[in-house]
C-alpha cells in the first residue's frame, strides 16, 4: 500500500505487536490520543493491555523500559520530542547501554526508544533539535534514522527484534511529506547497512534522515555523476559502503542537520582518513547545522543546511 512515514511506522508496530506478544508500547499520549504525531493511532484500541499512557516522566519511561526488558518484554517507548529525551539520558547512558557488558551477557536490554527528530516544522524550543551524536557517542546503543517510509518499516522491525537498545529517530519534517509503496507483508532491513540511493563516479554524498531528499533536490540538474549514500543506521556505521564509494569517487560531501562540532560528519571524515586517505582528490566538505541552539521559527532557516549550501560544497569539492 501507499504509505507515508507515520503510516509505515504504525504498520511496523502493529505487525510486530500482533506477531510477538512480548512487544509493548509506552509513552506520553500514545494511547487514546495516538501520539502527538499519531504514529500509534489505533494501537491502543487494538492492543489495550499492551499500550500504556505513562505519567509525564521520561526518565521513568526509559528506566522502566529497561526493567520491562530485563524481565522478558520488548518495550518500544516513545519520547514525544527529541528535546525531551534529555531527562532519560542517565538511564540510557548509565544503564541501557552498559547492562550487557556489566553482566557479561547475563542480562540484556532489547528496548527501542522511538522519537521524532530534527527541525523544519517551525516549532517551539526543544522541538527541532538533532541530538543524535550523544547516542552515537555512547557505546552500547544503536542509532537508526530512516529517510523514507519503506525503510522505516523494515528498520523498525529489525530494531524491535534486535537484542540491544536501539534509538530510533524519526525525521518529523518528513512524517507526512510523501508516500511510497510499502509492502503489507513483513520484511526487515538490517541495521548497520547503508543504502546507495543513486550511483555515481565523480563524488559521494553521505547523508541520512530528511536530508536524503534535500540532497536529491540539490543534485538535480548538476553535470556531475554523483553517488548518494543514505546511512540509515548511524551506529553501527556501514563503513564498507562508505569506503568502497569514496575510494572510487575520491571526493566526498557529508550533509547533516546536527551541529558541526562532533557531528557525524566528523567521525566519517576520520574513518575515511584512516581507510581511504590516498584515494581522496579533494578535502571532504561538510554541510551541517551551525554550532548553536536551533533558532525559533523566524531564524530557523538560517541554521539549516539547504540545497544552496549543498551545491556550493559540491562545486568546491569538484573544483578543488
Amino acid at each position, binding site marked *: 500500500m501507499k504509505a507515508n512515514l507515520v503510516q509505515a511506522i504504525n504498520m511496523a508496530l502493529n505487525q510486530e505487536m500482533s506477531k510477538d506478544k512480548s512487544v509493548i508500547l509506552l509513552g506520553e*499520549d500514545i494511547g487514546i490520543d495516538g501520539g502527538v504525531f499519531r504514529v500509534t493511532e489505533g494501537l491502543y484500541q487494538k492492543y489495550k493491555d499492551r499500550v500504556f499512557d505513562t505519567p509525564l516522566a521520561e526518565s521513568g519511561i526509559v528506566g522502566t523500559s529497561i526493567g520491562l526488558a530485563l524481565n522478558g518484554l520488548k518495550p518500544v517507548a516513545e519520547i514525544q520530542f527529541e*528535546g525531551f529525551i534529555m531527562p532519560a539520558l542517565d538511564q540510557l547512558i548509565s544503564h541501557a547501554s552498559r547492562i550487557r557488558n556489566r553482566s557479561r551477557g547475563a542480562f540484556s536490554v532489547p528496548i527501542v526508544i522511538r522519537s521524532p527528530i530534527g527541525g523544519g516544522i517551525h516549532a517551539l524550543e526543544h522541538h527541532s533539535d538533532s541530538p543524535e551524536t550523544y547516542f552515537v557517542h555512547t557505546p552500547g546503543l544503536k542509532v537508526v534514522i530512516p529517510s523514507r517510509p519503506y525503510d522505516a518499516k523494515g528498520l523498525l522491525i529489525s530494531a524491535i527484534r534486535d537484542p540491544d537498545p536501539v534509538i530510533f529517530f524519526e525525521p518529523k519534517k518528513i512524517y507526512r511529506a510523501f508516500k511510497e509503496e510499502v509492502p503489507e507483508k513483513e520484511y526487515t532491513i538490517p541495521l548497520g547497512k547503508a543504502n546507495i540511493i543513486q550511483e555515481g563516479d565523480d563524488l559521494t554524498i553521505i547523508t541520512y534522515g530528511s536530508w536524503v531528499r534535500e540532497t536529491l533536490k540539490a543534485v538535480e540538474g548538476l553535470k556531475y555523476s554523483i553517488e548518494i549514500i543514505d546511512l540509515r543506521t548511524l551506529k553501527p556505521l556501514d563503513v564498507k559502503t562508505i569506503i568502497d564509494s569514496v575510494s572510487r569517487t575520491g571526493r566526498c560531501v557529508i550533509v547533516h542537520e546536527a551541529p558541526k562540532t562532533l557531528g557525524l560528519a566528523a567521525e566519517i571524515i576520520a574513518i575515511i582518513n584512516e581507510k581511504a586517505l590516498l584515494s581522496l582528490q579533494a578535502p571532504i566538505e561538510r554541510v551541517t547545522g551551525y554550532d548553536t541552539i536551533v533558532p525559533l521559527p523566524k531564524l530557523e532557516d538560517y541554521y539549516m543546511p539547504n540545497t544552496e549550501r549543498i551545491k556550493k560544497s559540491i562545486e568546491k569539492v569538484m573544483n578543488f
Partner: protein
Amino acid sequence: MPKKIIQNFNIEFLSILDENGKADSKLMPKLSNNDIKLMYELMKKTRIFDEKALKLQREGRLGTYASSLGQEAAQIGSAYALDKEDFIFPSFREQGVYLLRGMPIDQYLAYWRGDERGMYSTKKVNMFTVTIPVGTHMLHAAGFGWASKIKKESRVVVTYFGDGATSEGDFHEAMNFASVFEIPLIFICQNNQYAISVPVSKQTKSATIAQKAIAYGMYGIKVDGNDVFAMYKSTKEAVERAKKGKPTLIEAFTYRRNDHTTSDDAKKYRNDKELKQWDKKDPIERLKKYMITKKLWTKEYEEELDRKFNDEMDEAIKKMESIEDPKKEDILNYVYAELDENLKEQKEELK
C-alpha cells in the same frame, strides 16, 4: 509493642467565592474595591489576549500557542499577592502572570511568533523566560530562592507548573531542596486536570496533588483555582510562610478549557459534557457576579474594558508585526558571552 499511628495528615481545601458569586465573609481576604476591580481587569485582559493570540495563530501570524482559557483566576489571584520584587518562574501557559507583571505585550507575542527577542524583557519584570521542558524549571526557582536566602534578600520566589509536571523527578527534587534548605519558595501547580491527553487520574494515584508536599515536610493546600479570592489568600499566606523559610505547595484546582495547544485536538480524548460543566465555573463570570452584588460592575464598565483591552492588543499586534526581522547573525551571537574562533568562522560563512 503494638503498631501505632505516628504521623497524621490533613489536606485543606480552600474556596471562598462560590459559583454564584457569593463570598464567604469569614474567609474573605482583605482586598479593597480597587484591588478587586484590578484583578477583574487583569483576568479580562488575559482572556482577551488569549482570544487574540488564538486568532493570530489560526491566521498563520503566530506559531504554536498554549491557551490559558479558564485558568485566569489561578494565575491572577496568585500573582496579585506578590510584591514586584518577588521573582517568578513560569512554565508556558502563564499569560496572565506575564501581563500582570507588565511584560510588553508585543514582545511576549513576538516570542510565540518564533522570535527569541521576545523573551528579553522578562528580566525587567522579575520573571524568568518561558520554559518548554515540563517540570525542569522548579529547580531553577529553588536555586533562585536559595540565593535570595543566602544573600539575605527579603524576596520570595514563585514557580508555576501543571499537574503533569508533578510526575517528573525534578519536581520532587525541587520540593526536597526547598524544604531541606528552607528556601522562600512557593510552588503553584495549576491542576487543569490534563497533561495533553492524559487525565490527572492517570498521572498520579494521590488523591490530591497538594498532599505530595507532606512527603517533603512542606505545607500543601488544595485551592479552588477558579476562585480568585481563594488563590489570592492562599498565596498571600504562602508568602508569609516563605519568609520564615517554609515553602508551600498550592494546588490550584482548575480546568484547561481549550486544546492543550493549537497543535492539539482535545475532542480525541474528552467529551463535551465535561467541558460544558467547566464553562459554567468560569472564573471571570464568577467574580463578575460578586462585583454586581457589590455594585462594582456595570455594563458600561465592561464595555469600556473590552474596548480598552482590544485596542491595547491591536496596538501591540501592530507593533509586533512591524518590528524589523532579527539579524541572521543573531543565531550565533548569544551562544556564549564572546564568540569563539570556531563561531567567528561560522559567522563569516553565514554572511
